[in-house]
């Protein structure tokens, strides 16, 4: 009964093969899940995995790969590997990789990612690394205050490497055409906006459409500028404050005066860039790379000084992008050795402009190659000293900010304000409730 036909397979043999085929991946899976050791720990075969995001033009990642593959590890450590992780779905990518122990040993990532994963026990705190930076003098090379933004009660969750500021930009040619002067206060911003409106140009370019966190950033930036913010000094949601109500009342005025584009509520990042390129945006908050993004009008675009608010405060919003180390690593020493090397090389990104944000190191900010771009210099000199993070008024950032930035309550709030119909206090009250529900979890 079990004789094999010539060149064939017996039924029992076939069943055996089928069983083996099933068992092999199952056993392999068991092996993976049971192995928290070296093989998959932040890099197969002892190598160290570095994951990076598309921070600039495609040339950025090409340069990044060169830097990483050019790393010579100390004796006994493996080489580093480079992998680009797209922003689209990055949270899923990192989470699933970390959960399956196949994540990176070191990575860049979203501004609050390190705080979020530290809260889940996945981040190797950088306190020892920071100590080494203090000893070799690198610590003093950081712009004032930026390292402190990484500090939590348990230690430093990451090391800063660039800042993503939200400065005001203006199109000088359009302001000249409208006969408006560059604003320095909210009243002047309103006046300039009205003048720009007469020539069909927005005086507060923003957008809060699909996958565009800009609108949320701009609302928070206005609150912080007026001495407000989303949180109190203890990190509890504190949205319904006089400073915030005043800031959002001003935004509503801008909307109702037609200074904010009627369609801004649905503008994607591309839509907004198109508005700048098409000379439909005269003034607005944007990222440091606006001049490169809106290249058609890039030469006319200039960074404004931070506005003086009605409260008398001068402040702005920034995100301190950072490099984080994970607990799942071939060794902590290997992670720190790589991080030290990488920090020593990041100047390359500004030496060969690849659409980067603003550096955190004084040595880069004061270099000749960086001084070629007066807008970037203005951001470093005028904005960074007065910038605060999303955590404001708390000085330390925390894990829940990852859900606040990009989360539904803030996005909905920004869209509500850009519609210009809702009472600011009512909208802020709804935001408060939304943030409380996120922060409590």
């Amino acid at each position, binding site marked *: 009964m079990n004789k094999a036909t010539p060149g064939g397979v017996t039924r029992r043999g076939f069943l055996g093969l089928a069983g083996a085929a099933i068992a092999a991946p199952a056993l392999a899976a068991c092996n993976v899940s049971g192995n928290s050791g070296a093989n998959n720990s932040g890099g197969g075969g002892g190598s160290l995995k570095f994951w990076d995001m598309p921070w600039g033009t495609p040339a950025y990642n090409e340069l990044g790969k060169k830097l990483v593959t050019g790393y010579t590890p100390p004796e006994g450590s493996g080489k580093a590997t480079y992998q680009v992780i797209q922003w689209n779905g990055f949270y899923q990518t990192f*989470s699933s990789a970390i959960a399956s122990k196949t994540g990176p040993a070191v990575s860049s990532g979203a501004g609050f990612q390190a705080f979020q994963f530290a809260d*889940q026990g996945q981040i190797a705190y950088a306190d020892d690394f920071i100590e080494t930076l203090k000893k070799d003098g690198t610590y003093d090379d950081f712009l004032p205050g930026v390292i402190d933004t990484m500090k939590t009660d348990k230690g430093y969750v990451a090391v800063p490497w660039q800042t993503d500021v939200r400065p005001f930009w203006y199109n000088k040619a359009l302001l000249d055409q409208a006969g408006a002067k560059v604003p320095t206060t909210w009243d002047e911003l309103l006046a300039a906006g009205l003048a720009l409106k007469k020539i069909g140009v927005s005086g507060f370019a923003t957008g809060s459409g699909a996958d565009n966190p800009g609108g949320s950033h701009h609302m928070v930036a206005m609150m912080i500028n007026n001495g407000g913010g989303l949180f109190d000094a203890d990190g509890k949601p504190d949205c319904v404050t006089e400073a915030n109500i005043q800031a959002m009342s001003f935004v509503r005025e801008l909307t109702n005066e037609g200074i904010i584009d009627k369609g801004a509520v649905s503008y994607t990042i591309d839509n907004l860039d198109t508005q700048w390129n098409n000379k439909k945006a005269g003034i607005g908050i944007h990222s440091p790379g606006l001049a490169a993004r809106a290249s058609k009008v890039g030469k006319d675009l200039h960074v404004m000084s931070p506005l003086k608010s009605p409260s008398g405060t001068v402040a702005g919003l920034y995100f301190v992008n950072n490099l984080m180390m994970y607990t799942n690593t071939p060794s902590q020493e290997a992670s720190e050795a790589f991080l030290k090397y990488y920090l020593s090389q990041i100047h390359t990104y500004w030496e060969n402009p690849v659409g980067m944000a603003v550096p955190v190191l004084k040595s880069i900010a004061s270099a000749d190659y960086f001084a070629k771009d007066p807008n970037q210099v203005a951001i470093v000199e005028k904005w960074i000293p007065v910038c605060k993070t999303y955590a404001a008024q708390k000085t330390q950032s925390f894990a829940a900010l990852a859900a606040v930035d990009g989360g539904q309550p803030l996005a909905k709030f920004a869209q509500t304000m850009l519609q210009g119909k809702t009472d600011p206090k009512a909208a802020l009250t709804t935001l408060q409730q939304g943030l409380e529900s996120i922060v409590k979890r």
Partner: protein
Amino acid sequence: MRTLTDSGGAPSARTGRPPATPRSATSAGGRGLSRRAITMILLVAPALILLLLINAYPLVVAASQSVHNGTLIVTGEFVALTNYADVLTSPRFWSAARFTLIFTVVGVFGSWLVGMGLALLLRTRIPGRGLFKVLLMLPWVVPIVVSATAWNWLVGTATSPVPTAAAKLGFGELTFLADPTLAAITVCVFKVWVSFPFMMLMTSAALAAVDATVYEAAGIDGASRRQQFVHITLPLISRSTYISWILMTIFCVNDFPTIYLLTGGGPVDATSSLVVLAYRSVFQDLQTGPGVAIAFLMTLVLVIISTTLYRQIRKVDIA
């Protein structure tokens, strides 16, 4: 009809072996499963195990997540049905459910009407019919990312082609994606546009199976075109119609990219469907439990709708 069970008594054509006796086909003593049954179970086992790994395991993990307050990485604390209770008492959930219903009804019946109309039109002998068929399939064939980008370009800003044309025609400044009502309409129309080729294909296939002599007989009996359509065409293609409705209902309820790429669920949640809400809860608010709870509730509703429609198909079969 030859079945697996009655094949046991037939001579084996390949081996020439005599038919197996009942004794030899069963295990010793006649207890338990027959050898044939065991063989079949073992043959099915690989596929079954793969199916369980691919479908059942994630389902079990997701069910666990929906009763915990963890993240994608850590399980968190057991919270029983709190996530379900939170979701069901949230106005945002019911707002999303309402839009999902509108989106599904418009998506299913809008695409069906357009698809059927075009399928009927393509039955007529018009020149270039083949070319039209290909062109009409494009919305279904083109990747949704490309379609959404194209639609955003068409209607996204005040200077986009459609708002510009609308302004010139005296409709004023229309902001198709910024106004909640217009955004909901735009998303629904976009869904119909993307989906009608599928309905057209399904209806065309069903129409092709209808015997032309039925119409000839009806014509001889004096039935008008409308009567032929209502009393002959619709009943004869009803089975296909119900199947296409079931499929399109599932497509619409589960449709994430059409909405998310065009509006992201905004403005102010005006186009937020349940699947978009689930996604945003898990991946933007980082609230895994409530997000997965929404997904399970959606599944439950889909099962009810599909079962109801499937029963309708059986009624048609019986009739």
